[in-house]
Each structure stands twice: as C-alpha cells, then as structure tokens.
C-alpha cells in the first residue's frame, strides 16, 4: 500500500473490498469470523505480493471476483467459508 501518498482509485477499491470482507465477517459467529479473516487476509497479502501493480486487467478481474464472493458471503444463510488446497 502506498503509505501516506495519495491512493489511486483502484487501490481504494481494493481496500474497500478488504474492509467489506472484514465487516461481513463481524456478523458471523466468532469462530467463523476468525477463519474468514485469516483466509481473506492471506489471499489479499499473496496477491499484493505476486501481482504486478500495473496489471490493471488482472487486478480488476480479481476485484470483480472478490465483490461477487463478498455478495455471496453477505447472505445471512451463509455461515462461513473454507479453502481447499489441491496438490498437483
């Protein structure tokens, strides 16, 4: 994150998405909340490190994917999320 400098629009969107996830996690059960937070923060950190910051096409794709996942998570019937590691 560009600390203390003016954040670009796309950076603000990424942060807003992250905030959205954390807020939604707050509404779930505490055990689930911790799991959601760890999964989400791990994903965001990985992408922040691996994805070239100039690759707008891919970042926008990830943003759209994240927004859709967030919409699904917001649904009160959804209790939590889990990840699966697929070994090649």
């Amino acid at each position, binding site marked *: 994150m560009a600390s203390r400098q003016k954040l670009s629009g796309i950076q603000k969107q990424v942060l807003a998405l992250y905030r959205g996830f954390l807020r939604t996690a707050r509404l779930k059960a505490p055990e689930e909340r911790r799991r959601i937070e760890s999964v989400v923060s791990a994903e965001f950190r990985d992408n922040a490190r691996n*994805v070239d910051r100039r*690759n707008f*096409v*891919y970042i*926008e*794709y990830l943003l*759209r*994917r994240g927004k*859709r996942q967030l919409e699904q998570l917001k649904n009160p019937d959804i209790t939590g999320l889990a990840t699966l590691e697929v070994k090649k």
Partner: protein
Amino acid sequence: MAAAALLRRSPAARALLSPALSARLVASKPHSSALAPPPPSSKPAAPANMKTFSIYRWDPDSPSTKPHLKDYQVDLSDCGPMVLDALLKIKNEQDPSLTFRRSCREGICGSCAMNIDGDNGLACLTKISGASSASTVSPLPHMFVIKDLVVDMTNFYSQYKSVEPWLKRKDPPPQEGKEILQSKADRAKLDGMYECILCACCSTSCPSYWWNPEEYLGPAALLHANRLPLWGTLIKPKPNMFMHLQARGYRGVADKRNLLDHKRRLLAEKYELRGKLYKAVCRDPDLPLDMREKFRYKLSKLPRNSSMTRLRNRCIFTGRSRAVYKKFRMSRIMFRTLANKGELTGVKKASWWIQDSRDQFTKERLDAINDEFKLYRCHTIKNCTHACPKGLNPAKQIDTIKKLQIDA
C-alpha cells in the same frame, strides 16, 4: 427329441439346396455369433476441409498474458455443422483448456451465447460458414470476461430481477385454488415475449447498453417488463426537458430566427402605444388632413421591426415558422416527439392496450422504468432484433412500453 431331430435335419436340408442359392443365403445372412462385418472405411469421401477458427483466449490464472486470438484448424468434413461442434472438437482434440459455457446444444438454454464473426448468437445454432476464410469467435461484447469465452452475467441477471418478472395481483384470484383464466386473444399477446431464453445476445449487441450497462436495462429486461402487464398510466411531466431552455431567460432556444423574432417582440412592445396612437390619428376622419399627413409620416418613421405584423409565432425548440400550435408553442414535429415521450402534461394517445391481462400492477411497473435511463436510453438502434437467435423482436416490445407510458 423333436428339436434334435430338427437340428439333424437342417444341415441335411441345407445340403440339398443348390450351391449358388446356399452361397447367396450364407452371404446375405451371416450367423449372429460371427463377427460383424467391418464398418465402411473411415476414410472420408470428401477431402479434408480445413477451416481456421480464431478464438479469443485469456487465462486469469496466468495474469501476465494479455487477451489474444488463437488460431485452431478444424477439419469440417469430420465435424458437426454448428460452431459449438467445432469448439467441442477443438477442446477434445487440440486444446482442453478452451473454456466456454454450453448445455443443451439445441438453442433452448442460452448458455453458449457468444460473438461469432461479429454477430452475437448461440454457438449451437450458428452454422459454420463454409467460406475458407477464418472465423473469429469471441465472447459477448462489452462484458467482463471471466475466462476465454465465459463472461460475467451478474449485471444482466440483476437487471432482469429488478423488473420483477413474476405475476403480481392486488386482489385474490377470482376462483380460489384455481388458475387465473385468460382468453386466447390475451394469451396470443404474449407470443414473441415468452420465448426469450435470456441468452443476452440482444442486450450485448446494443451500443446504448455498452455505454450505460448499469443504468439502462437493456432490450432483454425490457422485453420481460413488457411481457408482464401493461395498462395505461398517467404521464409525468419531465422537468429536465424544459428547464435548460427556460434557464436562458426567454422562452425560445438560441435559434437565430427565434432571437430576431424576440427582438421584434421587444420593439413592438416598446412602440406599441406610440404606433397605435399614430395610426388612430391617421385613421380618424374628423381630424384635419395635414395633421393626419404629419402623423402618417411619423408612423412611417417608426422602426420596421416594431410592427406587429412582423411577429411570427415560431416553435420554441426548432424555430420552425409553419405548423406551430399556439397552445403548445411548438411545431407539429416537436409536439409529436415530446407527446410520444410523455413529456407533455395531459397529452395522451387515444389507443391503449393490455399485454398480460392477468397481472394488475401495470401502472406501478410502468412507473418503475419511467426514468431517463432505464427505458429511454433505447434509441431504436435495432441491433437487438438483428442479434436475437430466437427471432424475437425486443425493439418492438420496447416501443410498446414507450407508447403506453403516455396513455392513461
């Protein structure tokens, strides 16, 4: 015993037949347990007919690669007639990573909608063009791509949802527990709308939808809005049409002719009293002639543009001098345009009709889409009708909604 006897007899019986006949019999009816004769040779009678398909590829898992067109050669003589057959052949034989949506392969599910050679259509219904030039297959235009030919349809579906595409009633059905009845004529009105499979070909072919995908509902959603009931509604005066004109201070557009006419009106007003006075003096037979002459001279000295006869009621929008109605201060053309849009208060067309007779929420439905963006972004471009793979006419349905917006 009898069976054994039969068996023993049959070879004997066969031996009695003439060799030619028996040979023919044996040849025409091979024993069922013998191997089936080999199928006809798999060498195609027609020579290999290769066609190139340029397919849009983009893989989100390798983010550094940009979207690109990849060429694949397909032998048409060994492939089904439709583009979907070619895509499946490529996926099966050449590149398993090619991703696309498909389900029914008969043009009823709407999954395989994509852009083939510039036109939107269903891959399972679009024949491969026989021409030897390459075919370009790309995803639906101006939609976010998830992978290869798969696009993000969430916006499209949410617009469909916003139209509330279900029957709504205010009072309970006439017969409790039974269906709401509908005459054949009423049911016939739904033809041309119920067949829509929500493939999104029409909406994604509309340039107006490309430029405003969030606000404009698109031909598909509007077709479904029309499929539900339509009843007249009161017109709502649209303020924006007039405001920017009235803000200019005078009632006309900055048209040169209107400006001049306005100048004339100002002058006429200024010299009105004077002119009338002079004229009255001139016309009065009781006054002495030289006095009348003097005033006649004075009258002629007044500026020409102060004459009332030079005023002309022009259309305030276009400046047209002919066919201008005093009541509306506009010409017949503008009147018609605005009246059809519903921007004239109290003006409605004499005809109105119902689409689905069973639904009772027509007025609310029409009001819901009666804003500048949801419905009126449609400028009758008619790309949707051209693109629809089921042969429906969304433009016509949108037109009926617009007409109904002005009825009561």
